[in-house]
């Protein structure tokens, strides 16, 4: 009795650790600790289940331990070997496997036990959601990893097809519940569910996969909760629901961060890279205050490149404030002053002196170009012509031959300006489409003010 209770308490602790862990995970400072808490919570749950005396049956320790060791090794290796950049794909795979796990369980339950109707509904739901999560995640993985292109898996009128498919699956669901259930029908159902998962993700743009993964992740959570109902296990139930809810909110937040609605994302058919502004064929990637602030905050060296836009926005003082904040956190901050930046000789000097930027922080063209390759982040504040690579590599350009700041040699480039419009010289700037460049659109002063707020919150 007391042992049983301990098991229950262990589950309870597991649930609390899940909540607390995810709570800590949502702030950069504590995120790592939060992940640890959640992992401990999971350990509580697994150990409690392994020891729970109330579960009667064969025991089958070998099978369990075998499966666990196998899974742990694979999971561990996959997580450790994967390249940093491929992590989202990995998450997608993991999530798919979680969904598959739920689907397998539900299948077994459907086939082996005599379930009452309620339990049948729940098991079928777990089966459906788990299957969708499985194939959907796998396709998301393939897309994210660049192994499959959107065009390879989309058909004409894909969204319509998906709607029809969904209706069929649900009809079969109801039929299975209300009418007699046969193994064949179940298999058909499983196949349809798996197929629907694939087809559901197929028309969604590759760049939107993170949103999809988050959504499928909350699906997996729900399927776990459903499984929890089947087995009468509170931790699964609570954990699943909790993750389901958190995942849903997260999905919505991710859409908001891209200025899109979830519907908009799911209906799909978007360009390969969402969130940017198009100009002709090329697409520039855009970013926002939160990501940029964290990028700046956690880098070793930052260099600002002020231009005429700084003057127009009168952003010199907030820029200095951002500088101060970053310096206070050990970031090395410099300013690269191009000789013709602005609209009069010494324009940037006037502004930065007004903001009291100490002179030793101002680098002229040569010093700046020497320092750029060792700089983590270049922040271009309303400059354009003076950072135009055409001066270096496009002999046809009217500014070819002019010395410019080679900002693209740094690790990251953030460009603060209001639009894709050209500067004084009236020429396009390839920098904006560079691999390492992200555009941060908006009035420079407002943008920097937002950065300041975000950095303060870190």
């Amino acid at each position: 009795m007391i042992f049983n209770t301990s098991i229950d308490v262990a589950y309870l602790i597991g649930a609390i650790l899940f909540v607390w862990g995810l709570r800590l995970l949502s702030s950069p400072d504590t995120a790592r600790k939060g992940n640890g808490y959640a992992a401990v919570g999971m350990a509580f749950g697994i150990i409690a289940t392994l020891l729970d005396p109330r579960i009667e049956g064969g025991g089958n320790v070998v099978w369990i331990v075998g499966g666990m060791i196998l899974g742990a090794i694979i999971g561990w290796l996959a997580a450790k070997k994967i390249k940093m950049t491929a992590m989202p794909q990995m998450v997608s795979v993991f999530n798919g496997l979680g969904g598959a796990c739920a689907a397998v369980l539900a299948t077994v339950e459907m086939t082996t036990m005599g379930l009452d109707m309620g339990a049948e509904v729940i098991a079928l739901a777990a089966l459906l959601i788990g299957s969708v999560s499985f194939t959907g995640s796998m396709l998301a993985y393939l897309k994210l990893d660049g192994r499959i292109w959107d065009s390879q898996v989309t058909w004409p009128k894909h969204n319509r097809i998906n709607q029809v498919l969904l209706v069929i699956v649900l009809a079969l669901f109801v039929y299975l519940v209300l009418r007699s259930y046969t193994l064949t029908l179940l298999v058909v159902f499983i196949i349809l569910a798996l197929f629907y998962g694939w087809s559901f993700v197929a028309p969604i743009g590759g760049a939107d996969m993170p949103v999809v993964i988050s959504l499928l992740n909350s699906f997996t959570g729900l399927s776990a909760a459903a499984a929890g109902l089947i087995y009468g296990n509170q931790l699964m139930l609570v954990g699943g629901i909790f993750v389901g809810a958190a995942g849903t909110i997260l999905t919505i937040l991710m859409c908001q961060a891209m200025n899109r609605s979830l519907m908009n994302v799911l209906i799909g058919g978007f360009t390969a890279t969402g969130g940017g502004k198009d100009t002709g064929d090329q697409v520039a990637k855009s970013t926002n205050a939160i990501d940029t602030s964290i990028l700046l905050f956690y880098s070793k060296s930052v260099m600002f490149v002020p231009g005429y836009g700084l003057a127009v926005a009168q952003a010199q003082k907030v820029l200095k404030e951002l500088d101060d904040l970053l310096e206070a956190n050990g970031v090395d901050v410099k300013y690269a002053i191009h000789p013709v930046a602005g609209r009069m000789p010494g324009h940037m000097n006037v502004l930065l002196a007004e903001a009291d930027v100490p002179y030793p922080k101002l680098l002229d063209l040569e010093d700046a170009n020497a320092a750029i390759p060792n700089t983590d982040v270049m922040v271009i504040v309303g400059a354009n012509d003076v950072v135009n690579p055409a001066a270096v590599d496009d002999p046809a350009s009217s500014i070819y031959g002019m010395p410019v700041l080679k900002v693209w040699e740094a690790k990251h480039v953030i460009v603060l300006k209001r639009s894709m419009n050209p500067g004084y010289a009236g020429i396009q700037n390839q920098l904006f489409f560079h691999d390492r460049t992200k555009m941060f659109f908006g009035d420079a002063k407002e943008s920097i003010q937002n950065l300041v707020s975000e950095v303060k919150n870190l």
Partner: protein
Amino acid sequence: MDQIIHFINDNLLLIYLLIFTVLLGFEVISKVPTVLHTPLMSGANAISGVVIIGAIILIRRSATDDYFSLAFGTLAIALGMINVVGGFAVTDRMLEMFKKKKK
């Protein structure tokens, strides 16, 4: 309809619990910086591996010669375990960059 009402009646506490859990899920996530979206998704994904508990229960319950259940159960355990272990490990790696500084 009737069944739903019955269900509500029978599981009132459960419903409270579920709704409060949902509220808690919302509340906990509602103000998260964009840069944490991916780690958070990854962490949440690892937690959703809690379904492995079901797989363990399944096997423990099964007769020692119910190879159908055992096989599928073990498969489920392995899948779940990949999700759990891989999930937490990958999240931890993602979060390494955040350990550098303290304010």
